């Protein structure tokens, strides 16, 4: 067994019987995120899958306080929490804003950019399941090229995914990291690290979604792993501007044995209408991003 498993906080912060789907990637990631952040935390969230996981009135499965807010307002809500806690001398509490790709890449971008520019002392977490999954798998700007969604139902998505992490990085925040629930220890470590840093921190979770991506729930970890193995998702952190590949992505870079994206694409029903040209475009996009990361690895 991985020896570092024992260092993980044993306490569970999500009680059994939540409303999350079977094999939910977000659920697995949230489990380790809360273990890492522990009790002294407040989460704020918009309408999204997490809002469903957080439960319906009058019960919640989650043992950390949470504040629901409207879709565009997640990061601004964190600003309000930070200001309110500061005014009440409770700034020891870690404030976390957490939204999906819809609430981050699309509607939440303004509030997030504003909060980051103000150097708000909070952790922003985007769980990226590459679409508006809570409302039934509609296209978002995080949906990859060639994916079927309920708003790209015939032709598939015609554009590449927005490189949102670059936009966040342009805010020169002290800490930024990408994680996957397929690598829970890497995820846990990054949240532990983020908790200790002051200022705006951003963590991006690649969250596989069985109903949205159309694969059996049992394959959630496998799908997360394949995303990393193919370079579709890259695990790294940027600390005070210093870029560093981590975990499996680091190993892949060292060994040069990244898998072709077809290995990832063929396992998901959402890509069933993808044509060869799109597949090549997606592979080229992944290669270009990967090369950028390799270059930064050499430079930093």
């Amino acid at each position, binding site marked *: 067994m991985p020896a570092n498993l024992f260092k993980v906080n044993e306490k569970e912060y999500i009680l059994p019987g939540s409303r999350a789907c079977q094999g939910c990637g977000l659920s697995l990631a949230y489990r380790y995120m809360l273990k890492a952040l522990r*009790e*002294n*935390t*407040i989460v*704020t969230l918009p309408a999204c899958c997490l*809002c*469903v996981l*957080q*439960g*319906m*009135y*009058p*019960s*919640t499965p*989650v*043992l*950390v*306080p*949470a*504040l*629901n*807010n*409207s879709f*565009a*307002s997640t990061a*601004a*809500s*964190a*600003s*309000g*929490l930070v*200001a*309110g*806690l*500061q*005014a*009440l001398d*409770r700034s020891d*509490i870690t404030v976390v804003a957490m939204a999906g790709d819809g609430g981050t890449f699309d509607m939440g971008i*303004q*509030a997030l*950019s*504003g909060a980051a*520019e*103000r150097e708000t002392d909070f952790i922003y977490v985007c769980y990226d399941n590459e679409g508006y999954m809570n409302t039934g798998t509609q296209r978002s700007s995080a949906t990859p090229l060639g994916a079927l969604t309920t708003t790209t139902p015939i032709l598939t998505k015609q554009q590449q995914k927005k490189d949102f992490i670059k936009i966040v990085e342009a805010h020169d925040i002290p800490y930024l990291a990408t994680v996957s629930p397929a690598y829970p220890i890497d995820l846990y470590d990054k949240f532990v690290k983020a908790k200790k840093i002051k200022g705006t921190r951003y963590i991006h979770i690649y969250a596989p979604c069985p109903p949205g991506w159309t694969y059996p729930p049992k394959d959630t970890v496998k799908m997360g792993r394949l995303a990393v193995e193919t370079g579709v998702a890259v695990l790294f952190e940027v600390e005070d501007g210093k870029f560093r590949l981590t975990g499996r992505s680091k190993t892949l870079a060292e060994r040069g044995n990244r898998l072709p994206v077809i290995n990832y694409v063929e396992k998901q029903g959402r890509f069933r209408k993808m044509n060869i040209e799109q597949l090549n475009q997606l592979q080229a996009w992944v290669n270009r991003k990967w090369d950028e990361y390799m270059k930064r690895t050499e430079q930093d």
Partner: protein
Amino acid sequence: MSKVQIMTGNQAAAVGATLSGVQVVAAYPITPQSQLAEIMSQQIEGGKLRAEYVRVESEHSAMTVCISASTVGARVFTATSANGLLYMHEQLHWAAGARLPIVMCCVNRGVGAPWTIFNDQQDSLSQRDTGWLQIYCRNNQEILDTVIQAYRIAEKVYVPVMVCFDGFVLSHTMMPVDIPDAGAVRKFLPPYKPHTILSPEDPRNINPVLFPGRRENTEGVLCDGYMEMRYKLFAALDGARDVIIETDDAFAEVFGRRHGGMLWEYMTEDADVILTGIGSIASEATVAADMLREEGVKAGVVGIRVFRPFPKEDVRRALRKAQAIVTFEKAVSYGYEGGLCSDLKAALYGTEVKAPVHGCIAGLGGRDVKARELAEAVKASLADIEDGRTEKTLWLNCFTG
């Protein structure tokens, strides 16, 4: 010790917020509110007010910051105008639904398109159904006093309060204002006790999804469905009337000034025709009433101070002797008439007050409204009423072809 200073409406509002000891301010500048946002920055940066100022990137975020800071237990303040208020619209509903005692100044301005930076009340009037209390001021003294009163009201009924005053007409006009003693204000306004629990010691998930029906918690306690929560907000606004009146009385006792509670009256006792309006246009109407009386028309004025909750009992009482009622409004409900006109008619329906109500739209986008024009409009209205024509809304001082 209180002292008199000459100041603008925006300054008066800032002094009111400062005296109220607000702990978090979030605002995005917009004409004519900008000066208010600037003064609050000066107060905080200059050390005159110990508070957090969040310089947000939008009005939507301004209200969101207020919502979250209020949920953890901080007293919060914001201000906006026109399209800024419209951009907040979603969060106005959220703040009221979450029952947060936020106080916001709306420095009234017309909304685009097309653009205007000048005054009317279309901005706040169109937020009528967001669940906020709306109080309108007629001078700068009332602005200062009402901001202080608003916190006491909001924190008693757990409903947010919008303190509205006319852009430029009040916001940028200097008037003498008596500044209340800070210690007396602290006594008048006890510290904010939140009803929300947002603390790691007692984890709660606040404002989640509610079922249509009621649902038991694990202790077998039957908890509200969405509709019960809505009813509670409705009931809170209904019950706010007594708190508003009690607060104005208590304020008068300490500071020697009252602003009328739900509404104020001017020479209504023997008036045959009553002019009504909201905010500074009602003040102007008092001058018009004087003119009309000089011409032999017994006129009086009812100034609506609180628009939500609507002062239904109060207007029934104030208008009980009226033979005719004319409303002057700086806002309109397109496709019908002025909102005040409708609400007034509804409040009087089925009561012994049978006086016809005639509606005038005036002063949109800063169009000048002179007392003389109001007086002429009253005479025209009376002629219409005489002829039984009260359906048609009069557009005052407006070329209608």
